[in-house]
């Protein structure tokens, strides 16, 4: 049976939320930029601002020169989170399985729901309509037999519009699209693949699809197979709800960008704590840690480490993280973003050693650290994230 995947996305979600709260903002060029920090970069722009030449990542000073009537709003993460959560009321109603892509953007697996809600394309229209009516937020939707096609279809649309790719027509749909339209090919780590495609003058996904896979493999290496499947509109990855996602990830944007090692190390430890807390709440443990940093000049570096045995305790993970941090952060350039992800997640089953050969002092230290982590979890659960913090952050 063909799968039925719906991608629903509200573009510039934070701006859309801000406009819902203050309708007077609806026609002006808007940008979301952290205020009161020097060297701030734009995080989101409204379509009006985009028309003036503004784009995400642009320096605010320069943006103001290009568009003197620009209205700047500071980010409001809690409001965005609330709005995102509220959308789930509609999303979860229609979709037995859904996966958040980013705030205001979801992938829904509607396979097998036809008898309940009708065809997927109708559900897409209903979701659009419901969200518009209930929250005054306008989104675009794409329907297809897999995540890639649904996402690509949605990306081609404007708010209120809907595109359905019928089963069997995936390749025809993907063929004229530029290779740059593929989600994931924009990441700095994929620059090499893009450069190779440029070298071979393979401009569209159709060009890729028509090329023999073995010839592609010669030029693109490991990426060739995946790219060839994508070019034909094939994507087997299932829609995964957050709780069974095989990895946990948190990204922190550093505003303003920073070069101070102790401060950055403090921030990464905070992220580790939050992720460990999530792990513990999900009763899971992680088997791999991966740190990605992005420098101010957009260069990204990723380092990974395996964790054996799997663990969910900061005391075990922080030395690994320190080593990753030191291996990643070697250049003399400020950091703009850090993303820490935990992979190889398994159910938590800590096996206590019968004869622990570690020194007694070390065992006691680990026990104390675990108790402290649990105590902090409780405090934060009761009084909020910011109730208690380490001085280093």
């Amino acid at each position: 049976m063909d799968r039925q995947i719906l991608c629903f996305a509200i573009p510039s979600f934070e701006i859309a939320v801000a406009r819902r709260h203050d309708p007077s903002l609806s026609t002006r060029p808007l940008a979301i930029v952290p205020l009161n920090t020097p060297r701030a970069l734009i995080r989101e722009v409204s379509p009006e601002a985009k028309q003036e030449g503004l784009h995400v990542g642009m320096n605010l000073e320069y943006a103001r020169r290009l568009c003197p009537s620009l209205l700047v709003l500071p980010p409001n993460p809690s409001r965005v989170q609330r709005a995102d959560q509220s959308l789930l009321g509609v999303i979860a109603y229609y979709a037995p399985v859904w996966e958040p892509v980013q705030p205001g953007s979801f992938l829904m697996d509607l396979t097998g729901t036809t008898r309940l809600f009708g065809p997927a394309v109708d559900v897409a229209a209903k979701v659009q309509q419901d969200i518009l009516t209930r929250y005054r937020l306008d989104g675009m939707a794409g329907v297809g037999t897999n995540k890639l096609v649904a996402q690509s279809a949605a990306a081609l649309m404007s708010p209120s519009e809907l595109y359905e790719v019928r089963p069997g027509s995936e390749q025809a749909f993907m063929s004229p699209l530029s290779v740059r339209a593929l989600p994931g090919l924009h990441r700095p780590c994929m620059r090499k693949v893009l450069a190779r495609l440029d070298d071979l003058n393979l401009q569209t996904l159709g060009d890729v699809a028509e090329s023999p896979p073995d010839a592609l493999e010669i030029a693109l290496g490991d990426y060739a197979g995946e790219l060839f499947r994508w070019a034909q509109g094939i994507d087997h990855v299932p829609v995964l709800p957050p709780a069974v996602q095989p990895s946990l990830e948190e990204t922190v944007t550093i505003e303003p960008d920073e070069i101070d090692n102790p401060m950055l190390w403090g921030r990464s430890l905070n992220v580790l704590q939050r992720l460990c807390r999530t792990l513990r709440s999900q009763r899971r443990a992680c088997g791999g840690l991966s740190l990605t940093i992005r420098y101010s000049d957009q260069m990204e570096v990723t380092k990974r480490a395996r964790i054996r045995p799997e663990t969910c305790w900061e005391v075990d993970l922080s030395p690994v993280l320190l080593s990753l941090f030191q291996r990643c952060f070697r250049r003399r350039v400020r950091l703009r973003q850090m993303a820490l992800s935990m992979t190889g997640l398994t159910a938590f089953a800590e096996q206590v050693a019968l004869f622990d050969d570690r020194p007694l002092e070390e065992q006691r230290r680990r026990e104390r650290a675990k108790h402290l982590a649990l105590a902090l979890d409780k405090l934060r659960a009761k009084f909020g994230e910011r109730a208690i913090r380490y001085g280093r952050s």
Partner: protein
Amino acid sequence: MASSFVNLHTHSSYSPMSGVPTLDALCQAVRAQGQDTLALTDTNGLYGAIRFLEIARDAGLKPILGAELVHGRHRAVLLAKTPAGYANLCQVLSARHCDDPFDCINRVARHRTGLVILSDDVVALTVWREDSAENLFVELTPGPSMHEAVTVSRRLDLPPVATTRASFLHPADYQAHRLLRAIAGNTTLSRLRAEDCGAPSHWLMPEAVLARHFPHLPEALINSRQIAEQCHTDWNFKETIFPSFRRLSAEAAFQTLRAKTYAGARWRYGSLSAIVTQRIKKELAVILDKGYAHYFLIVDEIVRQAPRTCGRGSAAASIVSYCLGITHVDPIRHNLLFERFLNPGRHDPPDIDIDFPWDERPQILDWVFAHYGHQHAAMVANQNTLAPRAALREIAKVYGLPAGEIGKVLTLLHRRADFVDVTPGATAKTWADQVCRTLGLRTPWPEILFWSMQLQGHFRNLGLHPGGVVLVPDEICRYVPVEISASGWPVIQWEKDQTEEAGLVKIDLLGNRSLAVIRDALAAIERNTGRAIDYATWDPVSDPAANELIRRGDTMGCFYVESPATRLLLKKLWTGMPAARKAQADVCEYLVVVSSIIRPAANVFADEFVRRAHGRRYQSLHPLLDEVLAETHGIMVYQEDVMKVAVALGGFSVEDGDQLRKVLSKKHKERQLRDYKRQFYDGAAARGLRPPAINRIWAMIMSFAGYSFCKPHSASYAQVSFRSAYLRAHYPAEFIAAVVSNQGGYYSTFAYLSEGRRMGLTILPPDINASGWAYTGSGTTVRVGLMQIKSLEEDLAKRIITERQANEPYRSLYDFLNRVKPETAQATLLIKAGCFDSIAGELTRPALIWRLFAAQDPKRPGYMPIPPEYSFQQKLTHELALFGFPLSCHPLDLFKDELERIPHIAAKDLAQHVGDEVTVIGWLVTEKIISTKQGEPMEFLTLEDQTGLYDATIFPTIYRRYCHLLATNQAYVVRGTVEQQFSTVTLTVKAIRLLTSREVVAECEAVDELAG
């Protein structure tokens, strides 16, 4: 009363990237603390020793020379107690830099004579103590390790001495010290390790503060005074140290020189006229008197190692140099003044500078070191300092800013900072804040700007002087510490001024690109046409085509006379000259004048010279000047004119006149100049000149400040200019190919190739079977060389060419890959550059790349597709990325659609619109920013369109508005008034804007992306 404490361990900004205070500031601060003696102990060197002696004495301090020797975990302060101790100090420091491995403890033990040693290094002290306790002290400095040092002093029974180890003057300067250390270590402030920088307590503590740290050891302070009193402070480096030629006696050396000179004279002149003989005798007499024979013989010996050289500077005024073949310009024919080079009253050593083709110079230097030995010869250093731009860049890096942002801000500051209105008398901090606020630069730029003001000018590292070599009869490392440069040659720790002041004689062996251009062009001509031109007997000066080319100012690519200012002046001079005068005028003589009169602050005189050359009558400032300035129409042109005028009008002696000339070219000259000015005014008044006339003449003398040229130098260079002009006139393809291949000219490669196209040449793209490493020219075509492909390794290119020449041309890509076996990335560059187009058959460039990947992979696929050829835009992107400029079209062709919408005239038609306001399109080729007398910046631009080059001027008011838009290699729409002066046309800009098109913006972004 003098203080009882003497600072025996201090660091100035000559401690590389560690010491904060300048020598001036350090000496003034020490003097202000009431001390009368100071030891300068920079880290591992005597980089500023000669300067220190002068500054300390001016500040009323007795100077002690020393250094802090640091190596691994060992450290000691070594103070020169006697001149012999100084020689030992130099030897230890030389060993520190040259020996590998360096045995710090034993080396110091071996050269202890005449040295006082202060240290807190227990291991070293124990060893040295076993030898002798004499002149050995334990150094106590306030800080955490002092207590341990006190214990060592007691245990080893060695006297303690107190020091401050001052690396900065005030505690607040600690941040500056840390920044310097972070720059030196390529790190950030938060990653800087404590052991890599000094302690916060290492500031110049006054005695009272220091004494508070030594309540239990008052003798530590008293010992510092006692050591200082034992040290030699009356240093004298006046004696000149000449090299020795084959260990000949002075008499034998002179006789050899004499014989060589006369033999050379017969070669140069045939029979010897009385004038020649008289001049030779006169010069030899001075050389004998001064004892310079060895020096001449050595230079002669070096010059004989290369077939093509050019003597530069004042040495070209000497007939002895001419006869020996050191220079190639006849001083008698060109009326060159020997006194400018040598005169009996001149005390400083002679200075002979020789140019060699730039790529032959390393072999010449290798020969010098092999022949004279590393012990006797060393290069003069360039003391690289943190220039303002470098200071900003380096500090910004410490603050972690990305390179792209730094580059942009630096350009912005370079163009705009002078325009920012700052509160008068503002502090550096306020200035930095105001500049950043006005230019919209956010944190941390104000801080970076502030610190760059504090740190600029700091000594950073030793580089090599472009060609200065010092030769001494005995060991050079007894006179000055020697290091090993990156290229493996020994280099002394002093730059040319300190070298000269220390009495060391330097010979300049410099690299010259144009000599290589001429060499390569001559070789190409012989290869292409079979015509061999003999460099020694070749006389291009009498060639009509070369003369005509110079008259037209078509000298782009011609050595020494290719700058826009010179070309414009040549046009002004010759275009408007009455025919009768033109027929008589000697182009070479005028070329010598024109190349000398182009200097800052002499524009007014250049125009006046042109008027007079055209026959305008003029009133001489004084009859005495008529005689001395006759050949330059009453205008002072050459350096020696300063000397002549000072002698004739100011009543100076020849020596004083020469000194005045020398002082004018120095940086810090105000004090000396004041005395000369008074002397000149008095002398001129005594000769009946009135103050306004004296003012005018003095102003003319002052126009020689900064850089200026002596006539022998320009006359010598004019010979090379003429050779270039001859080649350009007769063999344009070979000439342009050689100019571009040797690089380093005034213009970019793109500009030279454009000029080549205007000269009627066709520029062919690189080809795997036709291109050499360098550009090649023949007939009317120039083939781009493989050197133009960015990132292509020279080794690979040479391998490609050797294989092709040894066997046969490459037949296909596979044939090439089989025979050369290049790396994939390198072969990709060649394919994208179009090198395989001629042998690709039906394959497109992308298809070639695909096959390249296939060839490297053991799994051969069954079917290889042929993707479509790159579009024109894609090819342009590749050209921009690989060559740095579009090769298949003029960059302005990229704006065809836009240009159709903008009414404009062509550059070649400018002369038809004199007085009109016109719009022209231009690709910015070169720009030169200058300051007006009021200190306001303005700019001269050279632009080109598809039809020609033109010059434009942007005056301050307009410049202020548009300067942020200007950058070379960009297209502009220029609106301005066409002005004519002396039959030459320039454009005075009224408005300028960037010409942009969507495609080009996309291209540039694509190139940035590739580069990034």
